[in-house]
């Protein structure tokens, strides 16, 4: 399955403040959530959904479970991901921020070796407007359509979704891959998925300073993506050597700067904008 398919969902950390709040939002956005997990709280209910103490208990009760959304605290996130992979669940979205990068690396390797799709950590998750949402993106600013938004930043995806919705341009998926240095799903992984999705007709990619994942994405686009791609890199005004809010947003080498990335992507045929307003006006 892919993130576009309607999933059967488990929420890990459902009894926590954020877990409970966003479970409600996901259900209201049409998501088929069937259960939650919080260790030691099996037998309780949250918004009428049964809570289990372990993922394997939940999976036994609901064999159709194929997706988990993780809200557990950073210190427990690695074990939560291992538990869900071991239970045979196919897709995981980790919302939790502040996860040590060594744990993120382990989560990525563990999921990859078990053929499990991992989105995040430290991300807003995704929404397929009109179908389902996995995470915390506000559904009321989105509308169904054929434009895919892929971004490292959460709030910029909201801003774009809202602007597109107001212009009458609907979205096939809005996906925040997260601001950490080592994400599960990369831009390339996400591009592969939206290129294969028949609903999607154009793609918006929002990158930022730090790393060279946007360049890898540009190489991939030039070779494998037939759909038009509009790009924006934020952080042009950021001096080198400082972290800008996201753990991964720091210019170490010249190639990690916003201007170097913008130029590289432009050369690969991607329609680049200098600012968010410019990007919105071009769509």
């Amino acid at each position: 399955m892919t993130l576009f398919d309607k999933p059967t969902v488990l929420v890990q950390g459902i009894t926590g403040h954020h877990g409970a709040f966003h479970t409600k939002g996901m259900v209201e956005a049409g998501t088929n959530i069937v259960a939650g997990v919080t260790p030691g709280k099996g037998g309780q209910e949250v918004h009428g959904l049964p809570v289990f103490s372990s993922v394997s208990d939940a999976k036994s009760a609901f064999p159709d479970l194929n997706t988990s959304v993780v809200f557990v605290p950073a210190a427990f996130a690695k074990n939560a991901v291992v538990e869900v992979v071991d239970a045979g669940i196919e897709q995981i979205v980790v919302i939790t921020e502040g996860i040590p990068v060594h744990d993120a690396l382990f989560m990525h390797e563990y999921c990859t070796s078990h053929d499990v799709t991992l989105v995040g950590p430290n991300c807003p998750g995704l929404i397929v407007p009109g179908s389902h949402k996995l995470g915390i993106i506000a559904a009321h600013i989105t509308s169904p359509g054929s434009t895919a938004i892929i971004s490292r930043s959460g709030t910029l995806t909201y801003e774009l979704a809202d602007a597109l919705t107001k212009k009458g341009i609907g979205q096939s998926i809005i996906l925040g891959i997260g601001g950490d240095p080592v994400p599960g799903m990369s831009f390339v992984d996400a591009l592969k998925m939206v290129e294969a999705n028949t609903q999607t007709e154009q793609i918006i990619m929002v990158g930022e300073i730090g790393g060279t994942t946007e360049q890898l994405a540009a190489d991939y686009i030039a070779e494998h993506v037939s759909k038009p791609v509009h790009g924006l890199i934020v952080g042009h005004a950021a001096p080198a050597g400082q972290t800008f809010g996201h753990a991964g947003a720091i210019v170490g080498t010249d190639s990690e700067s916003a201007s170097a990335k913008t130029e590289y992507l432009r050369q690969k045929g991607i329609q680049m904008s200098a600012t968010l307003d410019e990007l919105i006006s071009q769509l």
Partner: protein
Amino acid sequence: MNLLEHQAKSLLTEHGAPVPRSWLVRDSSTIPDPLSFPLVAKSQVPVGGRGKAGGIVNVDTREALPMVIDQILALDIKGHRPSSVLLEEKLEGSRELYLALRLNRDARRIEWLASPSGGIDIETNASSVETVALDDGAATLPSILGVEEAALSPLTKALLETFKASDLMLLEINPLIELSDKSLVCADAKILVDDNARFRQPTLPWPEVSGNPPKPLGGTIGCIANGAGMAMSTMDTIVAAGGKPANFLDIGGGTGEKEFMTALRQIMELPGVSSIIVNIFAGISRCDEIARGIIAAREQLPALPPLFIRLEGTNRDIAVQLLTDAGITIEPNLATCIQKALQASQAAPLDTSVEEASVFPTGARQDNQSISVERASEMDGGEKMTNTGSGR
């Protein structure tokens, strides 16, 4: 977090990596005894370029030492004044090598970097630095470095153990010295620790938590936005319009009155700020909460410079009503905010002195003593990371 050299070496010692004999001193009146001469006195500042700046001095006699210590302690290097000096036995090595472990974010793996030509010339020898996968280290590192496997193997084991046990993102040994008896010693060490691991690394020398202060950028237009991407995008839009942002600040979602007030107060303290732009898109957070913060700030901060406010998203209508009732206008979009902020800043002269002083120490990039792994490995997409916040 970047560790100071002596902190990095303590960590290495805990895991059995060989470092020179050393003594840490905080003033010239308490010099330990015995010391062995000649030695090297090294300023303990968290930035590179210490040698060039006069922060690393050879000392041949005990008599000369107090004056050198006083000089180093009084020497400001890139805005940092050391609180200690590391006295180290001077190594008479035959060769200077380069060896590092780093987390390669784009390849999503931990890897070795190695070069037989380490020391201060590594920058010009960047092409000599080879990238080696962890699993291939034992087989290929001895030949790349030109050292004996028996000497290297316990060192690489200790470095990898340090890297994993202490949640490091970068561990750079430059130079790694091969002594005449073929043994290896870590003469300098640069360590970058993952800030997200703070909760499980309680013994490391973490700084006091200082909240989320605005990052000064030296311009005239203060900025408050929610979300790191939004805050960067706001800065970029200001620059594209010909302005200069005074700061970067992501106040995050669900910000209350108190946090908003603190943010405004901190931006007002930056020199040269002539106005502040508030750029908020409320997805899960609510515009009316922000509006209440703005109204409270107007009442309680009499010296508040002009605010130019753009609010979109959840409960915008309520927010506009609240602000209108309080006599505060709201701009239709960010472009208008910037236009008005530019007009306001024309009156105030620009203070450019802030920019350099505020730059967080990246250390190695300008460092002649311990060359930057990022520079050395630029060709294969090297990176440099620290971290603070949320990607949401």
